[in-house]
């Protein structure tokens, strides 16, 4: 999205309910700042993230998608993030294979105690996407005509 001639990326962050969503809450509780470009969607576990959701976000105008879950070994459901890790590893490789910038997708493990890490991650991700510019390769122009 362009705001006053400046590129303002739309970032969708999928956060698992148990660790990362709580980590995001903690960064709020500690008043740690990160850009408003980031909008969080709460999912029960990182393994709930269907690749279709990521593609959907890009279709609808997202410039970056990040998945945050419990650290490997800490999954509330024991194994969810391990499955998510495999799925995302392969999916991101495939997107890159199709020529879509790898920087647009990211996985980060953020625990409920890591409010600072959450904010730092989001600051970094927004900066990366801002540098990268608008998502042009996985866009659906129909959703951009306003």
């Amino acid at each position: 999205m362009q705001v006053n001639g400046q590129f303002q990326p739309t970032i969708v962050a999928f956060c698992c309910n148990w660790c990362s969503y709580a980590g995001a809450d903690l960064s709020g509780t500690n008043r740690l700042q990160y850009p408003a470009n980031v909008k969080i969607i709460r999912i029960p576990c990182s393994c709930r993230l269907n690749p279709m959701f990521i593609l959907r976000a890009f279709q609808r105008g997202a410039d970056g998608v990040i998945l945050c879950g419990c650290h490997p070994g800490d999954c509330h459901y024991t194994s969810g993030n391990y499955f998510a890790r495999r799925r995302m590893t392969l999916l991101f490789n495939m997107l890159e294979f199709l020529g879509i910038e790898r920087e647009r997708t990211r996985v980060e493990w953020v625990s409920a105690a890591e409010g600072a890490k959450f904010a730092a991650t989001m600051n970094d991700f927004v900066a990366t996407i801002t540098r990268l510019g608008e998502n042009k390769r996985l866009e659906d122009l129909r959703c951009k005509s306003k």
Partner: protein
Amino acid sequence: MQRIGVFVCWCGSNIAATVDVEAVSQALSHEAGVVFSTNYQYMCSQAGQEMIQAAIHEHRLTGVVICSCSPRMHENTFRKTCERAGINPYMVEIANIREQCSWIHKDKAVGTEKAIILGRAAIAKVLLNAPLTAGTSPVTKRALVIGGGIAGIQTALDIADAGFEVDIVEKEPTIGGKMTQIDKTFPTLDCAACILTPKMVDAAQNEKIKIYAYSQVEAVKGFVGNFTVTIRRKARYVDEEKCTGCGLCTEKCPQKKVPNAFNLGLDTRRAIYIPFAQAVPKIATIDADYCTMLKTGKCGVCSKVCTAGAIDYHQQDTLIEEHYGAIVVATGYNPIQLDQFDEFAYSHSPDVVTSLELERLMNAAGPTGGTLLRPSDKTHPHTLVFVQCVGSRCDGGEKGKPYCSKICCMYTAKHAMLIREKYPDTEVYVFYIDVRTPGKNFDEFYRRAVEEYGVHYIKGMVGKVTPQNGKLYVQAADLLGGQQLKIEADMVVLAAAIEPDKSARPLATMLTASMDTNDFFTEAHPKLRPVESPTAGIFLSGACQGPKDIPETVAQAGAAASKVIGLLVKDHLVCNPCVAESNELMCNGCSACEKVCPYGAITYIDKEFRGPNRTTLLRRIAQVNPAVCQGCGACTVACPSGAMDLKGFSNGQIMAEVDAICR
């Protein structure tokens, strides 16, 4: 057609300061499906909740969106509010405009815009919500306590007292934990053994309590109300049924040079041992690392002297499986290793000891029989220096811990006081950064040490300790006196920081209970649910949750027990209704979902379907057990046909949120 009501909370100024709440409720009132939108100072207050209920009735709302604090905070509150007003509690969605909006943005325009988008996403989701009804699952009326220290014992006693069976798993040969090693307790100075050993005996004799000493938790499966735990009973090489605890073997064993772990290596014991006289269970254990028979096959003295015939050199570890409804973690603490603190010469001089070692040196059952002697030359020390905060309150890196270990100020005052009382000819210096004594009669206790016992409390730290000619040269700062002190001491006592037991981390993984960066277990809520883990059915007792003294530990142990009792009295638990569900018309029966399910919640049946042209088709389809499913959603992504979906977090709902956010 859904009729959605939107309620924007100011949270006093917490939200309203950086989000224009009026603009948000205005903007959201134009969203499709919204028939009512308002804002109010405190939605979670009585008045706020009544306002929501009134709006539900007046506008015949079918769904509610609350723009407020995190759903982790008040989702349940608002669900109950709406349920009381007659709509299904799962027709409520929360837009988190506090923790994830107003508190992280300073610019009001930015905050307002984001709050509107988050509100839209919640509206888009709630439009696809369906009323959900929770199922139930049975509760196994038996609890497991992991760790047999004072925390574990107290929890077990309290649970047993309420009439429920409870098992204690303790990795050491005896229960009792750290408290058995402590001499006296602050602030009353009563003897630890005198108050602890009766409790140990109570636990052993209580018919509801079963103690698995010298055992470890090997695997945990299941979920709240239905845990299956595999316990490894380590081989003692002594038949527990036969051993009478007479101790003859521990006197006759020829292997005498085993460091005595109970006395922290300050003296030695035999290869077959009973840790201490009051051990429970009082059963001998062979230390396989030192036993000549087990190592070389030659010896067998203990077997010969044992009249009960209890020695069994061929004993193996055994695995047993038990079922529990609740699990209490009481894994306790240990002092940290002091390798990183060379300046205090802990590794160089035996006269530099930790406070726990000092406890043993002062204990009547300890290596010196209760007389305070220097470990190096067994002489009476005349000058003692206590150093506080060793490894506590450190910033960053592998050196030390960032937290305050909480108990050191008080036990140091206790030590100083006891030494001055027993040996008035000693000079005792305590170097402190801050003296922290919140607690009933704590500060009075500390003042007595200073005022009545003449302990020298010096604000400042010890910079280095140099052992030389049988003395310890202590260089320290006296910040208030404005001088650098050089003290010639006989002994230095380090108040080492405490850390969670090393067994806690792998246990947390097994239990899927979360931990903080210091490996303390995380509580479900730091203030309101301090003895529960976020993982349902897992409770926390004692220092595994954070540094604690004995009274606090016992209090928490009781609190954890009451939470366990509250769970075990229920015959059934109400399940989370946000569980996976398979659409049998689309299911391929391929078993992908079953393979990723961590709970074994998915099974398959062959079901007959109506095929085209009046034919029938037998198809393999997946079925989800809603009582077992915990709603992680792993199966929904493994399923290629999309037959598997998650109630409350359906594909459609999440995509609707995505659409609303990216719009």
